[in-house]
């Protein structure tokens, strides 16, 4: 029942994301949908998937979206751009906190005896699965994050160039 309710919430948030006229609200709806999806994954014992969902989909992707949106705001929308300036570090801190909490304390609390993941994959705890068994995937995730960083840096660089060109024209 709990899973069905959570799935319904995910569905409604995805719907809201599609219908939202404001990109920032859509990004926040996506982040919340990812949080509920991660909760479903936790409830079903899929720890690795849940942590990936929280850290990448709710955390990193939201930060990327919010950064990009803040970059594309027009100069007459300074109030909203300022809001995104505060939201950006807040999002980062929040999701790092959620990740730490999930890894340290919430995991054992949520772990269900009837979990769908075969018991042997969790031998040695989450850290063994994460760092010991799936190092190849962790490396891939690091590469994904790095490509996101380069993408954002490229956008910033271009924006700075664009502004300097516009400044030149005004002068």
């Amino acid at each position, binding site marked *: 029942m709990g899973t069905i309710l959570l799935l319904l919430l995910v569905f409604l948030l995805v719907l809201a994301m599609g219908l939202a006229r404001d990109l920032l609200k859509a990004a926040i709806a996506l982040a919340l949908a990812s949080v509920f999806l991660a909760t479903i994954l936790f409830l079903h014992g899929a720890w690795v998937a849940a942590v990936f969902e929280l850290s990448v989909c709710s955390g990193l992707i939201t930060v990327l979206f919010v950064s990009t949106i803040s970059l594309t705001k027009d100069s007459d929308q300074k109030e909203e751009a300022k809001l995104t300036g505060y939201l950006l570090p807040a999002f980062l801190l929040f999701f790092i906190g959620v990740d730490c909490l999930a890894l340290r304390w919430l995991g054992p609390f949520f772990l269900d005896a009837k979990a769908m993941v*075969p018991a042997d994959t969790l031998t040695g705890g989450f850290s063994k699965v994460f*760092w*010991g*068994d*799936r*190092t*190849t*995937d*962790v*490396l*891939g*995730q*690091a*590469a*994904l994050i*790095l*490509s*996101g960083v*380069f*993408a954002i*840096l*490229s*956008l910033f*660089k*271009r924006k700075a*160039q664009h502004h300097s060109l516009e400044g030149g024209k005004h002068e």
Partner: protein
Amino acid sequence: MPNLSWFFTIPLSAALLMPFAAKVHRRAVDGLAVLAGFILLCLSLGTVLGGVPIGDFTAGGLLLRADGLSALFLLVINAIGFACLVYATDYLDHLGGRAKFFGLFLILLLGLNGVVLVHDLFSLYLYMEVASIAAYMLVAFTLEFDGIESALKYLLLSVVGTALILIAISLVYMRLGTLEFTAIKESLAQGAMPRLFLLTGTMFVVGFGLKAAIMPFHAWLPDAHPSAPAPVSAILSGVVIKVAGVYSLIRIFLGIYPRTPQIQGVFIILGVVSMACGAIIAYYQDDIKRMLAYSSISQIGYIMIGLGIGHPLAIAGALFHILNHAQFKSLLFLNSGALQFRTGTRNMTEMGGLENRMPVTSTTSVFGTLAIAGVPPFNGFFSKLFIILGAIKAGYYAVATLAAVFSIFTLGYFLIIQRRVFFGKLNAKWKDLQEAPLAMSVAVILLAASCLLTGVFFHQILSWVIEPAAAVLGGK
């Protein structure tokens, strides 16, 4: 002693060092990127010639596996990657942002290397996404309207393919409890998953078909490739569609899933449609990069035909064509980039008579044209010959005839393009045009030479690279 993990650590370390190199000097960035590319090329040659041990590699939780097929694709990825990195050192002069560009490019190489070195479906999916995300950003790197629009189209269509692949992977895991290639193969050999086989097979064909830009799943490619910077177009067309799409199809349908006549039939039909339609549409293009993009679809068709026929000669031909197409298509895309770099246009109707102004670009384009059209002794001749001979031996006479006809058609339209761009009367506005810068010329000379040498020494290439890859798939 170098090992398989270097294919991950070298590009990742170089990408991480890029921002620091940028603080030193722009040439430090170029040097770091080219050095990383060169080491990767040497490592991939090592996997082919025995310097880098292949097989299973374990270091902590890092589990990698390479066989003859992986070695072939590693060579394709890193040889073309190196040429593109060399080319980009001069090409980026007009684009800027070189540290970010090289960083993303190296992550793209890391993702592609990862795809061919992992041995479970989830990791394959993950590294395919690493490569794809870097590729989306590289397509949009100019941040001009065309680039962003094309990257968005590429992203949206890729997401459809990715979703199908992920659902299929989930279904396999739900039913078999494993995603490891060998374990899946053993389970399927024991008769597991007969009904899900059809469903997941269809999802994999469509999903990876989108990544490989096989017709009718090709809509993103003719926009994405022309809009991207030239080195990105070259690696997308020469490598990415083959690794993300064709390699995955080969690994799943020729390496894991049991081979069925239905799957072979689907491959042949998709291959013939791609080969014919891609070539015909390419003929009507005025935009040189768009024409090359459609030509890529046509050449992927040849590869699909070879794989679908299933005869050992045809499979060897298809694998050889993967290596060859990567070389001549990257060469032609890099040359189209040199033309755009100097003339500022991709429209062939505005060009003409550039032969004397850009002799290196013109000569290497002739090499690329002859290779793609399958003219001996260039490499394309031998791979197409094997595919056609394989089709004849397997009794697919109509397919063999069509493959030969469209090879001649390819020669025809590429010669017309050669005449429109390089021969004839020089357009007055190009009278002061200069040859492409040194690094760009060096890269295309290397690729042109490899097109010729791979053809001349095809016997050695077959025994070193193609036969070990074909042996993995049960053929020789």
